[in-house]
């Protein structure tokens, strides 16, 4: 591997990116998903994490262009130069440009957007080209057998970790790269090991989110339906962190990384995503693990690792005296909560494939269930 001369690198681990425009070759959400997966390739082996901006200046601006596009490195029509990107730094540094004269695809034909994006984002993070033919950072494009089986070579990992070090083990992301092809596996609802990314109510229904899917339990159909998140809310990301319904606002708030969205019915509200710091979180908080709105007192509890905050939905301010330790106020509940649900006067804390039913009056865990008990498993 090589790094750019002088080994420029980002001096922070939390980076923002923005997809400035789209290629007509693919649906927008496919471009979103391919870029998200390309970033995850590097996120998995470094301390870096990425959040997406929908406007303004991001560290990594991603765009499609043809020919001369304002940076003295004109593209050259179909073939030859497919894309280019700049090393870390201010302004246009870090940006990635894709040649719109290519035929961008999700599969082996044409030019696979995921593979090229993963390579270009390697440049955006500071890697130059590698002469190792097996490396992602080898300059000549070749479609590997299948992006779904894509793995960074050791050369790529050595290169990026020479700049940023490895991913701290506690944050190790073990999420396997699912295919960018349009036929991802639907999670199995009665898998005893099933865990959820987030759980929320929505106007009397129950939504249980997993990867790019969610199950929807309605009052009139005992059998839960499974849907792609993007089928209802195309602009929402997958692999969510948290979700809750603010009943007094008739809105569901969806969290991923340091951003959150507001959804009313199947409409994502304008002006979102916003940064979680607008809710009053300190900069040290990079993501929310779980959230639940207590319909009794109109307060929302946000769970982050072993602590939790309380947010006043009427004043839109974080309550004083927080964060507090989860174990102090919810004895028996394991930290690192995946999701929380309020139902029948209880709180249900999801932790991996288990769920703890917590009685707030008795202040104790009254039952331990399987997480997918709500799916009639």
């Amino acid at each position, binding site marked *: 591997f090589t790094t*750019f*001369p002088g080994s420029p690198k980002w001096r922070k681990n939390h980076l923002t990116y923005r997809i400035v425009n789209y290629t007509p070759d693919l649906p927008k959400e496919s471009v979103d998903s391919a870029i998200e997966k390309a970033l995850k390739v590097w996120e998995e082996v470094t301390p870096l994490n990425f959040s997406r901006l929908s406007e303004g200046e991001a560290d990594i601006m991603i765009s499609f262009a043809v020919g001369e596009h304002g940076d003295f*490195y004109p*593209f050259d029509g179909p*073939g*030859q*130069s*497919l*894309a*280019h*990107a700049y090393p870390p730094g201010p302004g246009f540094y870090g940006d990635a440009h894709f*040649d719109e004269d*290519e035929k961008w695809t999700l599969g082996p034909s044409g*030019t696979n957007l995921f593979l*090229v994006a993963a*390579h*270009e984002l390697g*440049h955006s993070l500071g890697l*130059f*080209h590698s*002469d190792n*033919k097996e490396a992602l950072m080898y*300059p*000549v*494009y*070749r479609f590997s057998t299948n992006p779904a089986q894509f793995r960074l070579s050791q050369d790529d990992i050595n290169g990026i970790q020479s700049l940023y070090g490895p991913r701290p083990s506690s944050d190790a992301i073990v999420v396997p790269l699912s295919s960018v092809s349009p036929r991802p596996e639907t999670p199995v609802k009665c898998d005893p090991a099933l865990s959820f990314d987030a759980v929320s109510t929505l106007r009397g229904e129950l939504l249980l989110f997993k990867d790019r899917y969610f199950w929807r339990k309605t009052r009139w159909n005992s059998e839960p339906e499974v849907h792609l998140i993007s089928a209802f809310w195309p602009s929402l990301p997958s692999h969510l962190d948290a979700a809750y319904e603010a009943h007094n606002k008739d809105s569901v708030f969806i969290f991923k990384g340091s951003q959150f969205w507001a959804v009313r019915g199947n409409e994502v509200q304008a002006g979102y995503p916003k940064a979680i710091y607008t809710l009053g979180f300190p900069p040290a908080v990079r993501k929310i693990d779980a959230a639940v709105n207590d319909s009794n007192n109109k307060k929302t509890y946000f769970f982050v690792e072993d602590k939790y905050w309380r947010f006043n939905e009427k004043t839109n301010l974080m309550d004083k005296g927080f964060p507090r330790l989860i174990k102090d106020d919810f004895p028996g509940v394991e930290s690192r909560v995946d999701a929380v649900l309020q139902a029948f006067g209880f709180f249900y804390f999801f932790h991996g494939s288990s769920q703890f039913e917590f009685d707030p009056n008795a202040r104790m865990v009254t039952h331990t269930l399987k997480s997918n008990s709500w799916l009639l498993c």
Partner: protein
Amino acid sequence: YPLHGAVSKDHPSMEFAQQYLEKYYSFEKNVEQVFRRKDSSPVVKKIQEMQKFLGLEMTGKLDSSTMDVMLKPRCGVPDVGG
């Protein structure tokens, strides 16, 4: 004066090779001079540098396997230089 058989000035791919070496291997702009100069060793060296990086046999010539790789789609970022 034979250019060591590296790249004769009317080699069909010379123009393409010139652009490729300029763009990705920081080859000097005024290749006309270099390609025509009696001593074409800078050209040979540059072609060998490219062949080495791309994992090709370092013949110093624009042979077919070298041209094949040069004609493949690639990233627009140079392989050497700034």
